[in-house]
Structures are given as structure tokens and as C-alpha cells.
């Protein structure tokens, strides 16, 4: 069984790539087969956080059909069982990916033969980021304990919801008034409530279906760059609020303590959890990784006990 976790959260600089690389490395060290995919097209730098040079092979070779299967561009990393798909050589134009190419990538990701697939997504809420996020019914949302990040975090959930509803409406029989109204809306603020309101006017029977659609999704929340003097209940409270006011399932999986050495590791282009396995932040990451794998048994023996 393959578990796919897109890693998003709206704001830039909250540590999406760092957490993708770290969780990938930890889960792989425990003996699971893992691939991390850099989907921050046009601004990719996941390879640096994995402590490697940009590989020659990448997503672009799959898009331009140099290779047949997406798995052929997954390259090994310094961690056994951990593979990496780069988008470094995807040129800037590819950041405006063709719709057909996007669908091709998404469907190829869903077929990749790994235990865990982590998708490192770009900043913001553009269509590519949202569609890649919706590759899976599960996702990881990253934020930091700052108003700007919290704001983008909620905006991200709202736009994801808006995208899900819009796609569902497009695919099925709905009154043209509903479709027109939705086309005019933007997902920036609270569109979900408005869509459900319009739908309930024309198709009262379908509101529950739409809500059920949203409730199929499960999101894990991580707060990064957490400093000691902060309110340690913040994550749990955000979880409570999300479960109360959104329709999906939200689970807070932990804080990651702030550590200046993380920046040092990035500067020296090394994989932090590998170089500093026993720091507070690495321990925080291990606890989070453990919550993601749960009791699942590894496919191969753990290579290293840490």
C-alpha cells in the first residue's frame, strides 16, 4: 500500500522542503521505501536540503518523454531506501505547466511503487500547487506560530476546499446558475460556505454529498520554528478549531523546535537529521515521522538505528 503525503501550507519559508527532506530521510532509515518529489516547479531546491547536487535526471525527462516511467527518474540519495525526483531542470516555463502534463504527472505519482511518497509543494495557492496537493486524500500542512503564517494556512485550506468543490461541480450535473455563480467566485475567502449555500438553493439533496466529499480528506498539521516561550497548546487549539469549523479531519502531529543549526546545515548543504540526529528538533521530527508511519512494518530492515 502506498501512502502519498503532499506537503503544503501556503506561506513561503515555513520549512516545507526542510520537513519533506527530514521526514523522508527518517522514514527511509526505518526501512520503508520512500521517494520525495520536488514539485516546487521553477523554484526547486529540495536536493540541497537532501545534501546532494542537483541530479541530471528529473521530472522534465518524464514530461518530454526521454524516459518512459516516472520511477526511472527517481535517483538514490545518501540515505538507503530514500529516493528523490528532482524538478531542478524544469525550466521556468514549466512553472506554468500544461494541464495535460499536470494530469500525467499526478496519475504517474499515484502509480509509483513506493511505501511513502512525499510531495514538496511550492508556496502559495496557484492551481498547480492545489492540484498536486489533491493528488491524495491525505496531506500535511506546515505553518509557523506567526499571524502571517496562520493567515496563509487558513487561506490554503479554504482554497483547497474551493478547488475540490469546483472540480466536483464541474464533473456532475448541476444547475447552470450554480456553475455560473461558482465560476465568478474566487477561493480567496470563505467560498465554501457560499458554494454550499447556492447548491442548497438549487439542489438541497446534494449538499450532504458535497460535505461528505470534503470530509473524505485528512490533514496533518505541523508547527515549525517553534520557540520555547510560545504557547505550547497552539497546535492542539488549531486542530480543535479546524475540526469544528471545516468539514475534514485534522490532526495536529507536533511542533518542531527552532534550532539555529538547521540554517547552518542548509548553508553547508547537508541533511540536518542525518548530521544532527540527537538535537531537540531532530527528536521532534522523529516523533512526527513516527505518527505518520504508525505501526506499519518496514519492507526492509532498518539500516541504522537512530
Amino acid at each position: 500500500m502506498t501512502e502519498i503525503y503532499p506537503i503544503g501550507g501556503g506561506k513561503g519559508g515555513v520549512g516545507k522542503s526542510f520537513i519533506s527532506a527530514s521526514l523522508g530521510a527518517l522514514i527511509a532509515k526505518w526501512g520503508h521505501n520512500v521517494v520525495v518529489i520536488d514539485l516546487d516547479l521553477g523554484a526547486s531546491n529540495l536536493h540541497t536540503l537532501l545534501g546532494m547536487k542537483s541530479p541530471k535526471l528529473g521530472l522534465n525527462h518524464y514530461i518530454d518523454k526521454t524516459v518512459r516511467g516516472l520511477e526511472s527518474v527517481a535517483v538514490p540519495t545518501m540515505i538507503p531506501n530514500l529516493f528523490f525526483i528532482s524538478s531542478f531542470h524544469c525550466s521556468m516555463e514549466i512553472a506554468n505547466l500544461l494541464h495535460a502534463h499536470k494530469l500525467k504527472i499526478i496519475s504517474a505519482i499515484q502509480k509509483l511503487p513506493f511505501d511513502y511518497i512525499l510531495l514538496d509543494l511550492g508556496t502559495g495557492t496557484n492551481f498547480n500547487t492545489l492540484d498536486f496537493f489533491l493528488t491524495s486524500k491525505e496531506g500535511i500542512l506546515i505553518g509557523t506560530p506567526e499571524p502571517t503564517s496562520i493567515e496563509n494556512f487558513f487561506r490554503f485550506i479554504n482554497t483547497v476546499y474551493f478547488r475540490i468543490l469546483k472540480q466536483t461541480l464541474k464533473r456532475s450535473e448541476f444547475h447552470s446558475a450554480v456553475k455560473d455563480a461558482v465560476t465568478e467566485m474566487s477561493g480567496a475567502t470563505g467560498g465554501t460556505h457560499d458554494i454550499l449555500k447556492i447548491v442548497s438553493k438549487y439542489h438541497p439533496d446534494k449538499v450532504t454529498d458535497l460535505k461528505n466529499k470534503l470530509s473524505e480528506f485528512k490533514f496533518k498539521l505541523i508547527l515549525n520554528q517553534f520557540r520555547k516561550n510560545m504557547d505550547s497548546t497552539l497546535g492542539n487549539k488549531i486542530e480543535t478549531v479546524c475540526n469544528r469549523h471545516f468539514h475534514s479531519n485534522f490532526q495536529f502531529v507536533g511542533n518542531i523546535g527552532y534550532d539555529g543549526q538547521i540554517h547552518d546545515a542548509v548553508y553547508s548543504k547537508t541533511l540536518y537529521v542525518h548530521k544532527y540526529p540527537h538535537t531537540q528538533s531532530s527528536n521532534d521530527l522523529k516523533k512526527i515521522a513516527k505518527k505518520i508511519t504508525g505501526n506499519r512494518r518496514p519492507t526492509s530492515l532498518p539500516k541504522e538505528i537512530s
Partner: protein
Amino acid sequence: MKYFDGLNYYEILKIPENSSFLEIKQAYRDAVSIYGEDSLVTYSLFSTDEREKILKIIEAAFFTLIDGNQRAAYDRMLVDSGQSDTTFISGQSQKQSEPVFYPGKAADDDQLADDATIKNQADEEKQLSDEILSKSSVSGKDLKKLREALGVEIHEIHSLTRISVSVLNAIEENRLESLPPDTYLRNFLKLYAEVLQIDPLKIVDGYFKHISRVQNTD
């Protein structure tokens, strides 16, 4: 976005129907820390209007449940309208005094950290009550400190226990000459401790030890 549609006051505050006075207070404090205007938790999630509406509902829930008479009427309404089963009626099965603070009831650090459910404020309260319970003698000052940390007013203890405010003040201020006879005092201390949900036996013993110590040094 969902709001509190269809939820009763207990569900809005996320507390069981037999919650004690202290639990209601704490739940209210938690709710305000989540939905208050300056809260980081819900920053930008609601419009000013929505937030005001939510806070109004939370306040209505709190002021109804914290008042014995209003709560009883509300509970009856829940039962009559079929929103709650008849096995509970406020005052009958309502939890009066289950102490949550015991000596040596140490939190399992590992488990707490794993669950990521550490609560700053709750931690502080636990620490304070542990500190008080670990003392062999408990002064009125200790009691006052704990009461204030829990956000409980003296008149609230009065309305729950019917102990007069002047006696409560005398207890907290260690004014021996104004304290009632021992049998009464014993009972009053027990009621006081029950409201704050701290081990009553320890408090009664500790307070009497404190009194005798003061009397001996005189």
C-alpha cells in the same frame, strides 16, 4: 465553514453535561483563548461579525451554565426537548468535587510530550497545587494563591458553598481570631478545597497544622 449550529451549550464549551463549576470556568477561558479577538489560533479565520457572533454564543453558554438556577432551567429544557436523556439533571449527577489535584499524581512526561497536549496554563496550575500539597502545612495565603491562579473569585466560592465572605477572607488571611470553631472550620475548608478540586483531606490537615504552628510560635 461550520459554526455552532445545532450544538448545545455544553457542546459549544466542549464539556460533559455533569461538569463542575471549575471545569466550566476553565472551558470558558479556553474558548476565549481560541476565539478572542487577539487569539493567534483563529487569526483571520473569521470576519469581525462572525467572531462577535461566536463570542456572544460562548458568553451566553458560560453565563447560563455557571449560574446554578439558570443551568437547572437550561438542563430541564434540554431534557424536555429531547436533546439530552433524563439520566442527567443538573444537581443530581453533577460532579461536585472530584479532586483533580492530588499529591504525587505526577504527569507522565513522555506521554504528555508524545501526545503534544501539554497545556501551559494547566501545567502552571498543576505545579502550584503540587507545591501546596507537598507542604506539610498549608496557609491561607497558599489557598488564595491557588484560587487566584484558577481564576475563581471569593464571591463565587461563597455562592457555591454558602460560606460567608468574611469567613472565607479570614481563612485566606490566616486571621485566627475570626475563624469559626474547629468542626465548622474543618467542614468549610473541605468545601473550599472541593470547589478548587484539590485534595480536601490534605488541605484540612495542612491548614490545621499551619494554625497550630502559628499558635505555638506566639
